[in-house]
């Protein structure tokens, strides 16, 4: 299994030339690996550049082109390796470049920085100060990637190799020990032993349900069936969550290796990767990885000469959130409309085409090679009683360091948000963290000490889900948050069962009424009743968990609901229908900024006149509030307070002090 060690590489792989056909035995694999490793000089300068979707969006492709051109221009192409890796997680500061062997980490790199970075990587190792991470507290520059607080507090077991591997290169994966777990399972373990090891590790599904993976495998293994299937659930659909994309994009062979081990364990000969069409890079990389793995003999017939056959097919999802649900996903795989079906018999027993089918999430499969190589005990070194190992979270929202973080289960929310995430930007106050995706829940400040784990988060009224973490600050209205997620779920409900289709629709309507000032007494009770019905009677997990955004915000922020309903006021001053903007006549200096930029022409003013917001015409976009110069700070945002009457026309004339004298 690849570890995040001092891997090395060369741009040429002479040892590959020796492989004329597929690898036919463990000895041949070992020989190839040794060859690949020998060709890589740890001392050779190497520039790694994040090529994940987030960094591509911030210009990583252009930076790569700049580096290539610069290496060419300086005649250094042979002396320096340039490697485009998968996502490194620190997406807030992308594109990220790390030079080796000194491990200097450069953030927000632009193509123009290429000459300096190239020069630095070959000529001694003086880091380029301006591109380094600056500690916001001490103003100190931090050179090494592993010393940056964002990385320092993480345990990157699953995700770590992303930064060392070119996802398009199976050789990179092999040099780091790739496919050794598959070799170990096939030649040194019985399929029973593989299932036992996974059971012993207490690995639980990373996709949302948290079902014990080993038990699922065992159930499938023991179930009668003509054929059995193993499936990767890469239909990641939670807003703001992208850990599965980054893994599949950045280290596709790790997922394939885990899947092949699972297939061997349960007795499947066919596997599927159900991946969102909206993840083009993940699709591209995994398809290439399958092709390469087949060429090398890690997939296909008689894998590594073991007699075990296993093929993998990629299936692209058409974009329905509900297809992340196991039975809906399987229905879609069969070529039908992706709607859930009753699963009183587990899909592990009766799944796709009514055959035993093991469906695990990307991150779950990624853990499997580690467990096989390092053992269940090693896996359980980290974690809480019920949740072992590490978990990747997608840390987004009002947070300084947006990105993907992998932490040991049991780390507190506070450590994740403040130590790794760097806290809330703009001097704002933390209000809540929403975990578990749209059907998760919001956890308030009082529970920041909560240790993350499947059961811990559920008890707090939220859930682990697939690992989304949306941080919210004091400007966030919790009623509006519930409305937002209900809107997402009502839109993504497949519409098959009544409690979900009709129930979420009605809940959304009531929540919208509350945020728009039409809340009535009795609304909360009605929402609770609809919640209970959806929770108890819906067909699938989407409907059953759809009330969570409402229930968890009601549990911790009931007062906000009550203020919206009874006082028609939004304490966070966020709900448009319940707020108003006006200009403080004592502070306005008639600079005309707000008037010029108001898109609704709702501000009356002019040179040396106090400006006034026309409340009828105002669309509450907040532009005036944002553009009013800080030295005047004259625009007021209020909720539930009467707007002071406008001053008379005579009083609106601003007499400058210079003219007074």
């Amino acid at each position, binding site marked *: 299994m690849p570890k995040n060690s001092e891997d090395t590489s060369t741009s040429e792989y002479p040892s590959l030339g020796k492989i004329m056909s597929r690898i036919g035995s463990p000895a041949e694999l070992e020989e190839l690996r040794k060859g690949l490793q020998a060709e890589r000089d740890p001392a050779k300068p190497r520039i790694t550049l994040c090529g994940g979707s987030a960094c591509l969006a911030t210009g990583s492709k252009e930076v790569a082109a700049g580096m290539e051109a610069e290496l060419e221009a300086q005649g250094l192409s042979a002396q320096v390796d340039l490697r485009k890796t998968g996502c490194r997680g620190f997406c807030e500061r992308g594109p990220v470049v790390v030079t080796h062997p000194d491990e200097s980490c450069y953030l927000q790199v632009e193509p123009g920085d290429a000459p300096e970075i190239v020069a630095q990587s070959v000529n001694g190792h003086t880091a380029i100060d301006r591109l380094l991470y600056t500690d916001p507290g001490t103003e100190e520059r931090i050179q090494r990637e592993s010393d940056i607080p964002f990385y320092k507090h993480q345990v990157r077991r699953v995700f770590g190799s992303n930064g060392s591997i070119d996802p398009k290169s199976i050789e990179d994966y092999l040099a780091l020990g790739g496919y050794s777990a598959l070799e170990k399972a096939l030649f040194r373990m019985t399929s029973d032993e593989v299932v036992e090891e996974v059971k012993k590790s207490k690995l639980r599904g990373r996709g949302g349900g948290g079902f014990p993976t080993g038990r699922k495998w065992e159930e499938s293994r023991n179930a009668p069936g003509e054929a059995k299937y193993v499936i990767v659930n890469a239909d990641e659909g939670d807003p703001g969550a992208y850990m599965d994309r980054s893994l599949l994009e950045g280290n596709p062979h790790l997922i394939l290796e885990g899947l092949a081990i699972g297939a061997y364990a349960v007795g499947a000969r066919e596997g599927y990767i159900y991946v969102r069409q909206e993840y083009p890079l993940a699709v591209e990389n995994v398809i290439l990885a399958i092709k390469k793995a087949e060429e090398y003999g890690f997939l296909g017939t008689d894998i590594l000469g073991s007699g075990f056959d296993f093929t993998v097919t990629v299936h692209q999802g058409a974009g329905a959130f509900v297809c992340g649900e196991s039975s809906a996903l399987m229905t879609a795989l069969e070529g039908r409309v992706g709607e859930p079906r009753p699963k009183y018999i587990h899909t592990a027993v009766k799944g796709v085409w009514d055959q035993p089918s093991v469906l695990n999430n990307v991150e779950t499969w990624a853990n499997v090679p580690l467990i096989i190589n390092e053992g269940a005990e090693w896996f359980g070194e980290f974690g809480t009683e019920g949740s072992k190992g590490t978990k990747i979270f997608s840390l987004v929202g009002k947070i300084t360091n947006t990105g993907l973080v992998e932490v040991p289960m049991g780390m507190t929310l506070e450590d994740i948000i403040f130590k790794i995430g760097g806290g809330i930007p703009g001097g704002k106050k933390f209000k809540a963290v929403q975990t578990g995706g749209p059907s998760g829940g919001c956890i308030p400040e009082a529970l920041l000490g909560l240790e993350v784990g499947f059961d811990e988060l559920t008890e707090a009224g939220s859930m682990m889900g697939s690992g989304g973490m949306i941080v919210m600050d004091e400007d966030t209205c919790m009623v509006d948050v519930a409305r937002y997620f209900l809107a997402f779920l009502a839109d993504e409900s497949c519409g*098959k069962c*009544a409690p979900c289709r009709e129930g979420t629709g009605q809940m959304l309507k009531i929540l919208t009424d509350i945020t728009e000032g039409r809340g009535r007494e009795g609304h909360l009770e009605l929402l609770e009743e609809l919640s209970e019905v959806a929770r108890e009677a819906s*067909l699938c997990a989407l409907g059953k968990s759809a009330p969570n955004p409402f229930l968890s915000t009601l549990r911790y922020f009931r007062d906000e609901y009550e203020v919206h309903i009874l006082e028609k006021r939004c304490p966070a001053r966020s709900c448009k229908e319940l707020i108003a903007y006006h200009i403080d006549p004592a502070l306005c200096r008639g600079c005309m900024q707000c008037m010029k930029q108001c898109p609704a022409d709702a501000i009356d003013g002019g040179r040396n006149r106090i400006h006034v917001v026309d409340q009828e015409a105002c669309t509450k976009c907040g532009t005036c509030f944002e553009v009013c110069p800080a030295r005047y700070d004259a625009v007021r945002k209020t909720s539930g307070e009467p707007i002071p009457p406008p001053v008379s026309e005579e009083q609106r004339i601003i007499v400058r002090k210079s003219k007074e004298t």
Partner: protein
Amino acid sequence: MSATLLQIDGKQVEAQEGMTLLEAAQGAGIRIPTLCHHEGLEPYGGCRICMVEIEKRGWSKLVAACVYPVEGDVVVRTRSEKIDLIRKTILELLLAHAPDSPGLLSLAREYGADKDRFEAQASFCVHCGLCVRYCSEIKKANAVGFLDRGKRREIAFIPEIAAAECWSCMECFALCPTSALQAAYVWVNALVPSLPHVEAGSER
């Protein structure tokens, strides 16, 4: 097939393996309300009116009787405060679509559901899927299907197929628990796009 013994509403019931709870109850003369169920069609589990409570080895949970397979030693309750609340609320939600449906109204009386609790909805359809499933499973015609999802989900006739298949069939109309005419309306509308467009539900 072997026989299984279970208890429904305090009554010992013998059922065949492979049966659903609904079938076992019906066989014993115990009534469980249904909306989307049809003997000739595959169980669907969409309306959730048939939710019952089962207790097994000390565990109790709510399941849809029309799709849940019978098991031995299971205790089934077809009425409870929670079940009645679920049925009442679902009826109220559906009555917002089809306030004149005789079947819904009769159940509404039984469960004390208020047909005007929720604001009237534009579409008459309660999404039982009987027409869609009948056309697909029995007639193998697939002339009518579901379009879109969630709140926007609606039934729609596919004009090309409907033009060839429906004139001689129309068997789905009678299955519609809201109004057979409504199905016809949708069909005619799909078939003759030149007809003046009428808002769905306006002929209630």
